[in-house]
């Protein structure tokens, strides 16, 4: 389908390297396996059979940060947890992306107090914010698709 028509007689496809690399990155973006609060339940829901995030090549949650490309911060981050989240982010190899899932991870949400980090962007650079308390699986998948769109537009020189 599709690729056979492009192959022609010579069996060769020409394409921009950037697009091929970004295509590979978007379609096998493995998230880091951790959840901090109730948003994690919706994250599990989006990866289970009903919503099936494996359609986008991300059915595999990696329990090791060294094998993960995407960090989904699902839930509130307490001040005690913040150094741990930052350490996990530092251990992920480049290229890496972060989705702040839900209101708590995006801006502190209802927890406007001393114990909760007011937005996870204070400790890790965030690419996509997903609103909702908690966001439904459709919203998270929409956030992932938004991130994919961003990744498709990235230049290779960013990581050179």
């Amino acid at each position, binding site marked *: 389908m599709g690729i056979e028509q492009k192959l022609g007689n010579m069996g060769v496809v020409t394409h921009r390297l950037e697009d091929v690399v970004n295509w590979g990155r978007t379609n096998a973006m493995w998230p880091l396996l951790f959840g901090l609060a109730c948003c994690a339940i919706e994250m599990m829901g989006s990866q289970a059979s009903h919503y099936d995030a494996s359609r986008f090549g991300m059915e595999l949650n990696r329990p090791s940060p060294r094998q993960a490309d995407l960090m989904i911060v699902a839930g509130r981050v307490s*001040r*005690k947890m913040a*150094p741990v989240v*930052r350490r996990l982010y530092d251990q992920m190899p480049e290229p890496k992306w972060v989705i702040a899932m839900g209101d708590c991870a995006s*801006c*502190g949400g209802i927890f*406007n*107090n*001393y*114990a909760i980090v*007011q*937005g996870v*962007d*204070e*400790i*890790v*650079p965030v690419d996509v914010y997903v609103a909702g308390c908690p966001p439904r699986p459709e919203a998270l998948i929409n956030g992932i698709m938004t991130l994919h769109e961003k990744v498709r537009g990235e230049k290779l020189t960013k990581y050179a």
Partner: protein
Amino acid sequence: MTQDQLVVDKIKAAYPDAIEEVVDFRGERTLIVQPDKLKAICYILRNNTDCQYDFLSDIVGDDYLPEFPRFAVSYHLYSIPKNHRLRLRVWVEDPDEGPETVGPVWPIATWLEMEVYDLMGIRFQGNGSLRRLFLPEDWQGHPLRKDYPLGYEEVQFSFNWQEIDAKKPYAKD
């Protein structure tokens, strides 16, 4: 005789002046006791065959900021054989010299007192392991005290977006 009255009698038999006040609220009895007699009373409540308060469910600290004494500590006891709940309460005048630990009576008290120390800053005498339990080890202050700042962050609306955004500490890549 009800269990409520029995408990008061047992304590009064041993220490006539130890109970400062008896409070009944919605069928629950609270005994306000003298801090220096607290541990001895706890031993009676646990060991006496008519009491048998073998389970310390919780230790709670209270802060009544403008008043003196400012702090109070409540001990929530439960007797599994008698199916009865009792609350002991002591007033704390100086949080640095809090009530004596009841760790020798119920070992779980060591942890519950650690929690009260962590969040309220009441030092229990004789508890050798008072340290940070829930908060990070380098935390300053005790956040459940009434004079501790709440740490609210000003909410970002469209009219003050720039102002808040300039102050917000964003992470480096």
